[in-house]
């Protein structure tokens, strides 16, 4: 089997190398309180103010699991088309670190709550690829260490200790930085659609551990290294490339890649070995004796499934079918659930393609320019819809619409009001158009002669002049017709 065209490879001195990538995403669960304690989960609170005695592992404290965290994991599993395991178990993962107060993390090892699933990703060349998900399990997040506050001490904040995480493990199905980036973006979209994680990598509510190995095409897998806690899609893609190159160099110089844990240094664009976790591999997993087996009721899972929102792939397909949009456009509009909802409000009962063009063009540009989001948009969906109406019923033309839209962004006013206030109604009065056209032709006799003599491009000049004379408000179709009639 030969590599397909467009297959990503690292060109080494001995030939091309394939890369093999697997991702472990740690996604913080959206919930009021923590996985095993009733302390709050909100980001950015005063240090150690969202810590219970359970989170701080005081003597005699015991874990009690949060139903909503379990539900969120099930919803995520359903969104990944994965197997939901009605019986699962919590295990202790034992190791010592300053941000792990109990000296163990409650996780799921042998029997996770969710089994195998799949994520479909769309690539730049228009193709799509199915990336396997191996499993999803629930576990506690650790606290935070600050190493730069004091010369000889590290400071520990346990606010994050005990927050519920979903660890989502992919199959090693990715073969390029692009595929990994697409998988992460799609995962983020799915999680945000489900409302199970906000996918905010800057704040650390979604993190990725990246497993990278390289091989010659057709070979079995070689040793992989894990790059921990990469906190942006861009860095993930850079880290993969940097690590793959590092490994290729080692193999080609006759060395052996050692299995180890590494960190990505974005400033240097390279990965480096992590010293501290070297001997922490013996986690001595065993079932947490403070907890019982997690048994889910089938009916409860079915109810959760009924409550799921329409997911991105389904919504995209529906947009193509219902609104006649091209797949790419539909894909852009469904990338965020809020954007898709906004679009549907604009498009409902209107020219869907016109609505899509306006959103993807002027509207997105305006959001970018003003630094706003869909949620904080200066232009509401209803207002944008009204603009589309004014275009559809020809009250205004395309050029005027742009002017009106700019005013909408600036003032927050409705388009109808702006059109009236500024007198921007499109002129469809035949005599007015007739007069304007005539005036332009009369004042440009030489150009008329040139046109009649064969310079057809001058037609655009006449149109422009007429529009200028009519302050842009002339109905373009009518202007065209009248010009054609008069020019012969």
């Amino acid at each position: 089997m030969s590599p397909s065209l467009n297959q990503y490879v690292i060109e080494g001195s001995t030939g091309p190398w394939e890369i093999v990538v697997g991702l472990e995403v740690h996604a913080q669960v959206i919930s009021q309180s923590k996985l095993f304690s009733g302390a709050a989960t909100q980001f950015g609170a005063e240090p150690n103010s969202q810590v219970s005695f359970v989170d701080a592992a005081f003597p005699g404290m015991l874990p009690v699991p949060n139903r909503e965290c379990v539900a969120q994991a099930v919803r995520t599993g359903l969104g990944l088309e994965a197997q939901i395991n009605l019986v699962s178990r919590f295990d202790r993962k034992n190791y010592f670190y300053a941000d792990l107060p109990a000296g163990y993390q409650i996780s799921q090892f042998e029997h996770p709550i969710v089994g195998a699933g799949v994520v479909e990703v769309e690539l730049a060349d228009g193709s799509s690829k199915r990336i396997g998900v191996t499993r999803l399990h629930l576990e506690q997040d650790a606290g935070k260490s600050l190493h730069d506050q004091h010369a000889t001490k590290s400071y520990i904040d346990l606010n994050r200790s005990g927050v519920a995480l979903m660890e989502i493990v992919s199959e090693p199905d990715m073969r390029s930085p692009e595929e990994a980036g697409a998988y992460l973006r799609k995962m983020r979209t799915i999680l945000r659609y489900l409302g199970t994680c906000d996918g905010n990598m800057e704040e650390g509510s979604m993190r990725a551990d990246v497993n990278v190995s390289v091989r010659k095409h057709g070979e079995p897998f070689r040793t992989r290294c894990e790059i921990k806690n990469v906190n942006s899609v861009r860095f993930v893609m850079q880290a993969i490339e940097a690590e793959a190159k590092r490994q290729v160099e080692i193999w080609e110089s006759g060395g052996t890649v050692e299995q180890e844990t590494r960190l990505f240094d974005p400033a240097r664009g390279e990965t480096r070995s992590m010293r501290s976790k070297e001997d922490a591999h013996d986690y001595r997993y065993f079932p947490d004796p403070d907890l019982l087996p997690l048994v889910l009721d089938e009916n409860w899972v079915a109810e959760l499934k009924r409550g799921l929102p329409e997911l991105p792939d389904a919504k995209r397909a529906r947009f193509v079918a219902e609104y006649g949009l091209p797949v790419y456009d539909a894909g852009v509009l469904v990338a965020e659930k809020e954007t898709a909802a906004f679009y549907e409000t604009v498009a409902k009962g209107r020219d869907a393609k016109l609505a899509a063009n306006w959103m993807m063009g002027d509207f997105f540009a305006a959001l970018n320019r003003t630094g706003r989001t869909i949620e904080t948009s200066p232009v509401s969906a209803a207002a944008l819809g009204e603009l589309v109406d004014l275009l559809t019923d020809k009250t205004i033309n395309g050029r005027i619409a742009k002017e009106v839209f700019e005013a909408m962004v600036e003032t927050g006013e409705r388009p109808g009001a702006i059109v009236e206030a500024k007198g921007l109604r499109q002129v469809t009065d035949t005599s007015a158009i007739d007069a304007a056209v005539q005036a332009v032709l009369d004042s440009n006799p030489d150009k008329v002669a040139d046109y009649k003599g064969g310079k057809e491009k001058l037609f655009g000049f006449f149109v422009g002049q007429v529009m200028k004379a009519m302050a842009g408000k002339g109905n373009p179709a009518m202007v065209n017709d009248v010009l054609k009639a008069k020019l012969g």
Partner: protein
Amino acid sequence: MSLTDLPLSAARDGLRRGDFTSLELVDAHLDAIEALNPRLNAFITVTADQARDEARKADAARARGADGALLGLPLAIKDLFCTAGVRTTAGSKILAPFVPPYESTVTANLRRDGAVFVGKTNLDEFAMGSSNMTSAFGPVTSPWTTSDNRRLVPGGSSGGSAAAVSARLCLGATGTDTGGSIRQPASFTGIVGAKPTYGRCSRWGVVAFASSLDHPGPFARTVEDAAVLLGSMAGFDPKDSTSADQKVPDFAAACRQSVRGLRIGVPKEYRSDDMPPEIDALWQQGLEWLRAAGAETVEVSLPHTKYGLAAYYIVAPAEASSNLARYDGIRFGQRRDGVDLDDLYERTRAEGFGPEVRRRIMIGTYVLSAGYYDAYYLRAQKLRALILKDFTDAFRSVDALLTPTAPSAAFAQGENMDDPIKMYLNDVFTVPANMAGIPGISVPAGLDKAGLPLGLQVLSRPFDEATGFAVAAVLESAAGFDTLPPLRAGAAG
């Protein structure tokens, strides 16, 4: 009759009749503690001022017409239960400075019912032991002596609680039983000790040793007193995921149930050739007492019982090694600084934990480590299933089981310390009930030839402590055990 001669129920009746006040009752016991604790070392912390304060409040409440199952009665609390504002050490240096900001559910329940706490009792460090010799606060001396006046152990790990109740320094006490740590010291000190069903009493706020084996339970001088205490301690706790959502029956009433028609099983594997003849004789005597009361006795087989102890010494240390990882000197407790974080951990823990605790942490870490989990921990948990199955099968044909509590009477301090296994063997009759989670109660039934107490153990079905209390009450009545330890409140010398 001195106020310290009254068992719990009698003292409660006395308070209700107004024969004396709670303050008088508590004062009498505090005086006894002051006189005897220097010798017995039963208490790590005595809360005299607080106790008097609580006693006054109890008297005032009673004057207003209030009452409660334990209103104004002085109890002692094993120093494994976190008591808010009162130092809780678990018998360890590593927790010597720890003052909990929260109250355990069990002690909160006792307070809810009006109990007065006179202090925190001594124990084997982190509840690991059968002699109370491993406490960082010195060993406990049993109130019982032999003619050669050697200091004897009260048993363990709840040795302080057992000694305190036996010596009449309090009317009752709490203990925990992980491998026998309530029943065995009760047997050694001639009092009643009960381990309920797993999950009957909440573990929230109890310093954890082995989570799947720890059972809080009561010590008292009579079966009925123990039943009253358990009734107060027990109850579902949503803060403990292993807490049983079961109604708490009237255990005191159960003590008066007839045993006529009950079938009592005698597990043949509990008898061995080297069993001391007097213990065997007492066991037979116990069976006769029950037959005289109308019960039937029948031999049963618990084939896996003999493996219980070895399986326990895999599971308990494994869970302990993980439960004790939180003692690192960072958020509470004693700390020894180091050159880096790992050094801090190593020095804090090596210095803060005693040798028995360190040994068990090492065993536990080893049996869970890579490559050994299946051979040890998993295998031991399978054996546990077999041990439970043995009991379940036996309980199809009998209602309770009768066995000796311990393979000997109390031994001298310092004995059995050279070989850990010798010490572990003290729990051979008690451990299987922890592994299966079934209730067990020890009743003082007789004396050995040195004049030291011997107990008999009644085991019953899960959540059927009632039958255990009924059988125990019959044994108590028949045995008429009324020997008193020389080192007790009010005794001369």
